[in-house]
């Protein structure tokens, strides 16, 4: 009797397992992020956000009655590895769509592979203007370009009393692109532009650049880099006695991490960001923002990562919406569907407008930009 019962139990178990795999064949989504190397913190946060989105979607029954599965690969903060990862995701894992690759330099490196294999990629972080104007119809960007950031910041130039600005930017497409468009915006506003200093993405000692900036007569310093290097810059600038109004761009600054690791050196700095977790009620979708912040905390991720983590969440939500619209997990169908996808992400409305040369346009969404200020170890929304 007992044995029959046990056999029956096993049979039911096996049947359920089969039913489960049958009903929920997985739809794979490739995630190409820097999980190690100089910008690892940001890449891990984006990936955490992506996992929260995937779990939320699966808990609600998945997409097209199938579960989604994230295939997460580490591009090691290196453009060559980013290309290898993209190729692996497409060829070996056969993902119909990807999200990546964080830095503009990695994204630009991956782009020819998208053309080669005809697989679309949602770009969640990169801000170099080049990405969407180079005629790659497989690119759909939900992060703002540096140009959009500069435009959004333009009406604050007067209020911050900027008369002359220097730049310290990371020596890649992102940093140099940001320096170009912000300089242009400032010059149009009648603000003088002084030194434009660059730094290697892995550089840790920035005293030489900061000493040079210290000898300039500018009142404001614009910085474009990720949180790790930014922490070092703020500490070293403080040690050098550099008195400047500091404004950082790009959205990868994690102000809470700056407060924690740079302490008083972070005081008085302004940061351009795309999600303010301190005030979820100020976002276009407060309920979703609150739920995301709560889930992030529940999983024990550091609060500082939320300003970066939302990108992964919005990216995967965008991809899931596009797969639903496409009706099948096929690269070409998803690419076509992305043009008609519309949703409200944590940042705001996500919908793609055409950018770049006619006939091979890339998709570019127009996200919201927030300016926050660190005051006495607290983050306040400046807009």
């Amino acid at each position: 009797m007992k044995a029959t019962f046990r056999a029956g139990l096993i049979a039911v178990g096996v049947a359920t397992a089969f039913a489960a795999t049958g009903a929920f064949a997985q739809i794979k989504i490739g995630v190409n992020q820097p999980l190690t190397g100089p910008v690892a913190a940001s890449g891990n946060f984006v990936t955490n956000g992506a996992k929260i989105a995937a779990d939320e979607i699966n808990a609600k029954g998945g997409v097209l009655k199938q579960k989604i599965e994230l295939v997460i690969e580490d591009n090691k903060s290196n453009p060559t590895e980013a290309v290898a990862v993209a190729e692996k995701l497409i060829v070996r894992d056969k993902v119909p769509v990807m999200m990546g690759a964080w830095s503009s330099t990695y994204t630009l490196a991956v782009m020819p592979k998208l053309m080669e294999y005809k697989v679309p990629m949602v770009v969640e972080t990169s801000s170099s203007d080049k990405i969407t104007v180079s005629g790659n119809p497989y690119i759909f960007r939900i992060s703002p370009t540096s140009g959009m950031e500069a435009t959004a910041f333009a009406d604050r130039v007067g209020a911050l009393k900027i008369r002359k600005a220097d730049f310290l930017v990371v020596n890649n497409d992102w940093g140099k692109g940001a320096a170009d468009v912000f300089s242009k915006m400032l010059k149009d506003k009648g603000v003088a532009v002084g030194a434009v200093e660059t730094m290697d993405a892995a550089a840790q000692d920035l005293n030489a650049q900061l000493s040079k900036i210290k000898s300039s007569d500018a009142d404001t310093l614009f910085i474009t880099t990720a949180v790790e290097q930014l922490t070092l810059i703020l500490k070293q600038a403080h040690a050098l006695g550099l008195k400047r109004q500091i404004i950082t761009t790009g959205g990868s600054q994690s102000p809470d991490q700056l407060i924690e690791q740079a302490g008083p050196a972070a005081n008085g700095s302004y940061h351009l960001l795309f999600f303010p977790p301190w005030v979820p009620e100020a976002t276009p979708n407060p309920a979703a923002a609150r739920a995301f912040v709560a889930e992030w905390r529940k999983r024990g991720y550091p609060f500082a990562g939320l300003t970066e983590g939302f990108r992964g969440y919005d990216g995967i939500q965008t991809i899931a919406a596009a797969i639903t619209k496409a009706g099948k997990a096929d690269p070409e169908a998803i690419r076509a569907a992305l043009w008609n996808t519309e949703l409200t992400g944590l940042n705001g409305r996500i919908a793609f407008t055409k950018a770049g040369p006619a006939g091979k346009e890339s998709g570019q969404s127009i996200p919201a930009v927030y300016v926050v200020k660190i005051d006495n170890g607290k983050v306040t929304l400046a807009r």
Partner: protein
Amino acid sequence: MDELLQHIVNAVMLGATYALLGIGLTLIFGIMRVVNFTHGELYAFGGYMIFMLTAMLGVNFYLALLGALVLGIVLGAVIELVLLRPMRGADIDTTMLIMIGCWIVLQNTEQMIWGGVAKSIVSPLPGEPLVFGPISVAWLRVFVFVAAALLIAGTYALIHRTKLGKAMRATFQDRDTAALMGVNVSAINTATFALGSGLAAAAGALLGAVFVITPTMGDLAALKAFAIVILGGLGSITGATIGGFILAFAEEMGAGYVSSGYRDAMGFLLIIVVLLFKPTGLFARAERIG
């Protein structure tokens, strides 16, 4: 003028840590003829050890520095005993491959244990800088400079004033004769590798406190260490010390007055120039052949 003074101060602070990095590597090459690709990993190991001791175990910062140095010496000794000693007599390419393998294993172990996200250390030194007129420098940098200088001086004293140092110098001059004179060359090898590794770990612990600690922090450090050693002349401690300062000045002045984008290229440009005119490096001693 103010800017120049600040650049000079920066370069001196940086140069001391570069020298510390270079000395460990040059000792190992000079005495053991081993191209030590694990040098950068010992540097990262030092950083993680001070992080583990201070942030996770609550050890006092200064004791933790000493702890990182000692643990670096222990790891160095283990690497020598387990990997290098059995390979004595093997050609330089074979040991080089082993060291490259060891480098990859160490780096990936660090990544597995601590993850890829940078770690930061809180130092007990005041956050407000030390200011002399137009010059400003962080207290921590001053401390790091002094500590590096003491370690360099200590290494000099060890090499030139102790019996162990005499045996090391004898082995460097002529391994076979030293062995015939009763020097235990195996023990000297272990001691040398442990000492070099300890110095790298100490440099990593000191700079880990100034910057941040990541599993790949050793890669750039190793590259710089090799540059310093080649610049100063392989096997020359004086060369490595001076080479460290020359590299720091080249980078600092290059970034300050030429182009900050080429900061890391400046040092290597300098090396090309030096090697064109003096292919053995600035301070290499003539080797006895045969």
